[in-house]
């Protein structure tokens, strides 16, 4: 049985209890959230790990990192290093997006070397193998796809991005209405190519029940891939995007009915003025299931700094209800991130998540900000380090500072600022 089905029977699982403790809620609150689909707990039945997190309504915003081999850069040891950096920097989940030579071995290594929620995108491996086995990606069969989904679930994947919300309707609207950057999702583009070439409906949509059955067996969380996410601010909330979101909503309902935990993936490039609407539409059309977003990127023009563009949009989206932020690194739009990029990506995204999390007055993030501020007033550096979001980063930054003598303008005489401190009783 999945966490959701157990929750509906009134059962509070060990995982729900763990989430309740870490988030400061009652186990009953978590159970009710999981039962309704507002909260997901990614935890494959076949994979043992100790760091469990919940994602969704009322909980802290979580952060996801990405790693994986690419055809151009295929170094599995390096990807394991990145994974360790992702986990050490405080991400709650990661996705192995490998498309290199040996995807199965890479996945085994990823799962073995991590203790956080693991995700993947089955269409990548299916497309890669079809190219090898059948000459061309477009020769991939529906069975090829579902075999990979099943293999990855059985291997222990906790959540899985599946591009089911892309169908002929969506593509027809895309063709009719036009767009600046048609399809920027890698999985989405592979399926688009397959559908046009074969003139056939997307199997992940057409055979959605088959997908649900596979996921249900291991309680792998379905993350409905945003195949049609806007890749330019100019495309945000356009016809194709909204149609895709409506299809995601239709499938969400079916997943909920089947007792399969589900979340929906979102953009992408969204200007600040669209963010409140983009969030509201997802929550409304997708029955309040968690929203897992890539960014949002609040501008298109900052390659080299897209960790920051993503933090801007991610924080604002978090304030408006986004639940899970996929990180962006400084290498986004430019190439495959290196280890340093990955670390910066997680750290930047954690700041964005925290900016949203502090809005819960009295919650853990709020209290940490308060403790940080008090440590600042009392000039207690040790406490400041303890309360920093990115402690390792702060420790390194402090070490790089040249020794400070402070302002010292007043030398031996009384400093006016000290007089002020006495006045306020904080000297």
């Amino acid at each position, binding site marked *: 049985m999945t966490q959701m089905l157990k929750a509906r029977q009134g059962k509070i699982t060990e995982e729900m209890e763990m989430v309740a403790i870490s988030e400061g809620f009652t186990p009953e609150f978590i159970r009710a959230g999981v039962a309704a689909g507002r909260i997901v707990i990614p935890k494959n039945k076949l994979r043992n790990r100790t760091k469990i997190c919940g994602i969704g309504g009322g909980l802290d915003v979580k952060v996801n990192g990405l790693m994986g081999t690419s055809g*151009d*850069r295929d170094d599995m040891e390096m990807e394991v290093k990145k994974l360790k950096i992702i986990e050490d920097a405080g991400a709650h989940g990661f996705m192995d997006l490998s498309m290199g030579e040996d995807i199965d071995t890479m996945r085994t290594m990823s799962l073995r070397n991590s203790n956080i929620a693991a995700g993947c995108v089955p269409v*990548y491996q299916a497309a890669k193998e079809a190219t090898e086995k059948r000459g061309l990606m477009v020769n991939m069969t529906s069975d090829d796809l579902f075999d990979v989904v099943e293999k990855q679930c059985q291997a222990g994947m906790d959540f899985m991005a599946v591009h089911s919300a892309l169908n002929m309707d969506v593509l027809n609207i*895309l*063709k*009719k209405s036009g767009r600046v*950057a048609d399809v920027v999702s*890698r999985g989405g*583009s592979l399926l*688009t190519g397959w559908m*046009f070439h074969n003139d056939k409906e997307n199997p992940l949509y057409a055979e959605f029940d088959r997908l649900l059955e596979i996921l249900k067996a291991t309680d792998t969380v379905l993350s409905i891939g945003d195949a049609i996410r806007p890749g*330019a*601010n100019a495309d945000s909330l356009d016809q194709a995007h909204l149609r895709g979101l409506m299809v995601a909503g239709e499938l969400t309902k079916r997943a909920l009915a089947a007792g399969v935990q589900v979340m929906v993936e979102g953009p992408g490039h969204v*200007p*600040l*003025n669209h963010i409140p609407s983009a969030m509201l539409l997802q929550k409304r059309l997708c029955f309040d299931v968690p929203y897992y977003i890539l960014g949002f990127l609040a501008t*298109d*023009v900052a*390659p080299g*700094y897209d960790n*920051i*563009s993503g*933090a*801007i*949009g991610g*924080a*604002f989206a978090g304030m408006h209800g986004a639940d899970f932020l996929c990180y962006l690194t400084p*290498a986004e739009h*430019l190439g*495959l991130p*290196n280890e340093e990029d990955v670390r910066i990506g997680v*750290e930047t995204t954690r700041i964005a998540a925290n*900016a949203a999390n*502090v*809005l819960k007055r009295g919650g853990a993030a709020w209290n*940490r*900000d*308060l403790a*940080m*501020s008090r440590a*600042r007033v009392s000039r207690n550096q040790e406490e400041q380090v303890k*309360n*920093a*979001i*990115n402690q390792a980063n*702060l420790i390194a*930054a402090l070490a790089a*500072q040249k020794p*400070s003598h402070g*302002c010292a*303008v*007043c030398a031996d*005489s*009384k400093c*006016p*600022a000290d*007089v002020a401190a006495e*006045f*306020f*009783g904080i000297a």
Partner: protein
Amino acid sequence: MTILEKARAGEITAEMIYVAQKEGIDPELIRQGVAAGEIVILMSSRPNINPVAVGKGLFTKVSASVGMYEVDDTIAGEMAKIDQAVKAKADTLMDLSVRGPIDEMREKVLATVDRPVGTLPLYQTLAVAQEKYGTALDMTADDMFAMMEKHAADGVSFLALHCGTTMDVINRAKEEGRIDPLVSYGGSHLIGWMVHNHCENPFFTQYDRVLEICKKYDVVLSFADGMRPGCIADSLDGAQVHELVILGGLVKKARAAGVQVMVKGPGHVPLDQIQTTVSLQKQLCGGAPYFVFGCLPTDSGAGMDHVTGAIGGAIASYYGADFLCYVTPAEHIGMPSADDVYLGVMASRIAAHAGDVGKGHPAAIAWDLEMSHARRELNWGRQMELAIDTETATKVWKDRSTNFESECSMCGDFCAMKIVGKYLRDENQEARN
């Protein structure tokens, strides 16, 4: 006549024409904005310094601050930071030196740069008083005004003054039990001086003198906020709002005197209070440009506060803030290095631009659109040209990719743009046409 008076008289000055061209709008709109006090033009008597306009309907601007603070800071060291700020395209600079050869430093900056420079004259007043009297607490009101006039006469474009930090405001902060009442360096010293001397703030009691000097040199008055919240828990507390109410009254007087004025703002503000913070300032200060420091939507981002500041700055800009004071990765830790300055300016510029896109600034939207077209075409040369930081983007691209003709190394052969382009491009082109 000051530029504000000229604007009211219907005159379009050379400065208005210059900034209108930079902004890509009609000079008459600039004139109207200046006349209404919704736009200020930062300018200088120095011929090497070009004017910059700040305010409603214009690009959100970014300012970078440097200055000698530590015993061993040097003019050369600070000028190296200025070089980085200029390279990163900060719109304006502030020299906030508190010690050392401050006059020499200011002269060097003003003689070197081509963009407006702001200062906070109280810093130097404190340092000089310390030398002259043996303690900064013995500084006199005349010292404060003399220093202010000296900076104005030198060609400084905007003067930051804590005119609204009054005894009432300070007492309110004390009564309320503010967590961090001493955030602003100048504010803290001024408060100490006021408390020690049992004396109301001279910038408030002798505000007419402030206005006379500003008018004489046609320098922009930039209200500093002594009660800037230094943690999100203090945001929008009584002391902050009280000071803002007072500043609103002072804005009115400045305008009546023909003096251009803008208002400095926070600081640490949680995301759900940014809109209110900006709206309050706009309403209470008659639409005067808002110059925010951040905003920082969380207190615990130390080490990466340029990111924290970019988040808050973008959202503040979106809600109407006009001018962002940068935040560097060294904020809350120490003084920024030249590299920190560069990164701080870049992060703030991204924030300013994201805010402008959100506000619907046509040129900002057009820039994003051009980049998206270049991406779709996999036109890397154009993408690099259009990047907000061409040098860094090119460096990262060259280092993290292997193929420089077509798709990048993120997806390699499985590049979405490439695959879909094959199937969709022709038909889609028709839909667009």
